[in-house]
């Protein structure tokens, strides 16, 4: 009984989603999130997914919302959708361990199911692939605001060193400025790296499709992409996007086949 009531609530929320799009208060968002979690815990993944999606459509953003939606999809064997949501959760929070674990597991299942032959190309390693895991353990907000604070303190110390009448305090301020400049540089580079990784154009293949050698249907196929594959967008030409798979396979496809992260 409770399950059906919650399902009905989810359906109603979906139907009226557009109408109340702007009127969602933080309390309501939290309540609906809890209701969706209840559905998920009781096994109604369809209802849970509907409520999570409804929250996302109405502008609520949280890595756990994407993660839980990914779980709801994965439980329904909607692996491609689950992959997209886990990727989105990781995009928002690169240190989301559970999302990374579930993504790997669902990807593994997807590969077993689709069995697209491996590409003949050489695997590629992009800068974002190296930076992402390196920077993932550091909380973005602390690093970024730390960089800003260190920079502000550096300028303060420099000013102090210039204005100080006493030679001793000027020397101390100068040393502090050098240390702060180093801290600001390191944290600033980390922030830049995190921003680079976060803004890297990445998409997930929504279905199986064949890549073209050029931005037109008449070009020959350069290989096939399996559903849920993570693709880096390298170039664009109208509605065509040049994508690169991690295994080195690259080619052109239309934008409607990609789910951007």
């Amino acid at each position: 009984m409770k399950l059906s009531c919650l399902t009905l609530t989810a359906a109603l929320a979906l139907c009226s989603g557009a109408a109340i799009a702007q009127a969602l208060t933080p309390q309501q968002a939290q309540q609906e999130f809890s209701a969706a979690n209840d559905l998920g815990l009781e096994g109604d993944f369809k209802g849970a997914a509907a409520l999570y999606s409804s929250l996302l459509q109405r502008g609520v953003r949280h890595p756990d919302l994407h993660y839980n939606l990914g779980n709801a999809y994965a439980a329904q064997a909607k692996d491609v959708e689950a992959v997209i949501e886990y990727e989105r959760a990781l995009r928002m929070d690169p240190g989301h361990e559970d999302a990374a674990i579930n993504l790997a597991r669902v990807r593994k299942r997807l590969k077993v199911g689709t069995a697209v032959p491996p590409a003949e190309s050489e695997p590629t390693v992009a800068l974002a692939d190296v930076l992402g895991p390196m920077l993932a353990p550091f909380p973005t907000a602390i690093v970024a605001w730390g960089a800003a604070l260190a920079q502000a303190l550096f300028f303060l110390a420099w000013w102090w060193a210039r204005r100080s009448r006493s030679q001793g305090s000027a020397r101390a301020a100068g040393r502090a400025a050098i240390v702060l400049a180093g801290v600001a540089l390191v944290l600033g580079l980390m922030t830049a790296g995190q921003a680079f990784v976060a803004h890297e154009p990445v998409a997930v293949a929504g279905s199986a499709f064949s890549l073209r050698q050029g931005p037109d249907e008449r070009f020959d196929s350069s290989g096939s992409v399996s559903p849920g594959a993570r693709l880096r967008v390298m170039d664009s030409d109208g509605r065509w996007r040049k994508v690169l798979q991690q295994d080195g396979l690259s080619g052109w496809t239309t934008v409607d086949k990609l789910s951007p992260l």
Partner: protein
Amino acid sequence: MRGVILMRAAPLALALWATAIATPARAAGELTIDVSLSDREVIVGDVVSLQVRTVSRINGNISVAVPRVPGLKELSRSSSEGTSVSWDSTSGQKVTREQTLGLELQANKAGTLTIPAFVAKVAGRSAQSRPLTLKVIASAALAANAPQAEAGQVAPPDPGEDKLFARYRLNKGTAYLGEQVLLDLEIFASPNRNFSLEEMPDAPELDGFWKKVVFKPTKLTRTVEVVGGRRYHVYRLWRMALFGLSAGERTLPPARLTFSTNRGMFGSGRRIRVRTKPVKLSILPLPTEGRPAGFASTNVGQYKLRATVDARTVPAGKAVLLKVALSGVGNIENARLPEIKDIDGFRVFPPTVKTEDKTGLSGIQGTKSAEILLMPTRGGRLQVPALSLPIYDPGRKSYERLSTPSIAIVVNGEPVAAPAIQAAPTKPEAKEVKLQPLHVRADVSAWSPPPFVTRAFFVALALPPLLFVLLLLGEWGWARAQRQTSAHVRRAVARDAKSRLQHAKQEADAGHLDKAYAAFVDALLTLGSERTQVALQGMTTEQVCETLAAHGASPATVQQVQEQLQTADYARFASGAVAGLQASTVLATWGDILSEVEALEPTERTS
């Protein structure tokens, strides 16, 4: 005496009598109320304007009671008041108040509705209007009498709508189920009629049709057409493509439009409401005779079917992309493509379907295509079989069977390199995956985006260096303002010399030429000292002249300086010695000397 009194009283009595006769008539005209309706016959859903005009010559506020009428819903109410003052010889100054009340009423019940009398009250007096009747016709009754649409034709204007009216226009009066019909909403206006459309009417709710607006101009353009023997400017508001979903007679409900006419600089003009006439459209069922097996009723139109593959020869393990495209004129969005479930020698992946439709004045046309990934499961020469799709072509009024030829694909080698393909079922079973649990404790309202996407972060980043640079600039500016540059000193000394010369002139004008000389000498020595960077104040006249000459002063100037310094010495010790000199001549000479000294190139001070 009595006669005199009678003669005097007679005009007074006459006036009293005239007043007594005139009073009831005036009383009747002191408060009037008049009610008028914009229409006397409407259909359910129409809006009528009711205007209540009250005129009062009684001192006091006008109040009008608005009765409620069942079946009429008040949408809006507006009120305006005005006062005019007139004067006549009998009653003197007269104040007339006029109140106009406007009501927008929507008829929502069929029948003859009676609008009861309106009562106006002013200072205890009252007046009432006549009751009015409004005939409201049910939409169904109107639909029953709606004329059958004729292809491309519009009904002539009714009496009263000869200058501005609206009509539906259909490109056909009869259509088959699923066939495309184009419906236009058009305004017909007399060439000299100025109007503005208050609101673009929405497409009507049409039951029994799948519909889509295919053309909606951003700016109205006109054509000229003769309707009912009169010339009209015709404006198309939109064009809609209709596809009948079930057979039978369908009535298109009237569209309502509101115009403002004669809009002036200071007013909104008159508001006119018009509505289209309902029209009937016959939807014919598709013929049962000759209907092919597997025909889908959504496949009605003029279509072509095409099937292509991206490669005719592929190595084993490489997929082939089969593209099946249905293109043409019709309800392409809902058209069905041929189903491809199994092809011998291939594993068939679920299709990716997309529709690209083009809408315009010619209606809906486009392409619906499906891309299907085919994975060869064995080598050799494989066949993608011929595809066929039955459709109904309303142009030819017959069923057609669209077909594509079979396509041969050569697979080089056996796909041994990809054993998973053979092992994989067509629809893979969802293998159980152990997932990490849901995160139920998250506070979804508390998450904030990373700082580097917020404006505050960039402000925080840019502010310290900006502030630092500003402080440096401020410091530099302050130091510069405090510094005494040589140019600064030069300008100050020149200003001081000019001031002393001015003082000398004042003294000369006052007749104190001796004091004037003293002031000039001060000015000369100060300016000269600054220009030559040599202290001239303690020197003799000859030394001064030598110094000036050494720093580039012309011999004539040096000569003048010598003469003036000597004269100044005389003036200092014997003021009478200079009494006979012309002040103006002396002042001109001083001016020349100082100008010459000021122009000397400054010499760097040496220690």
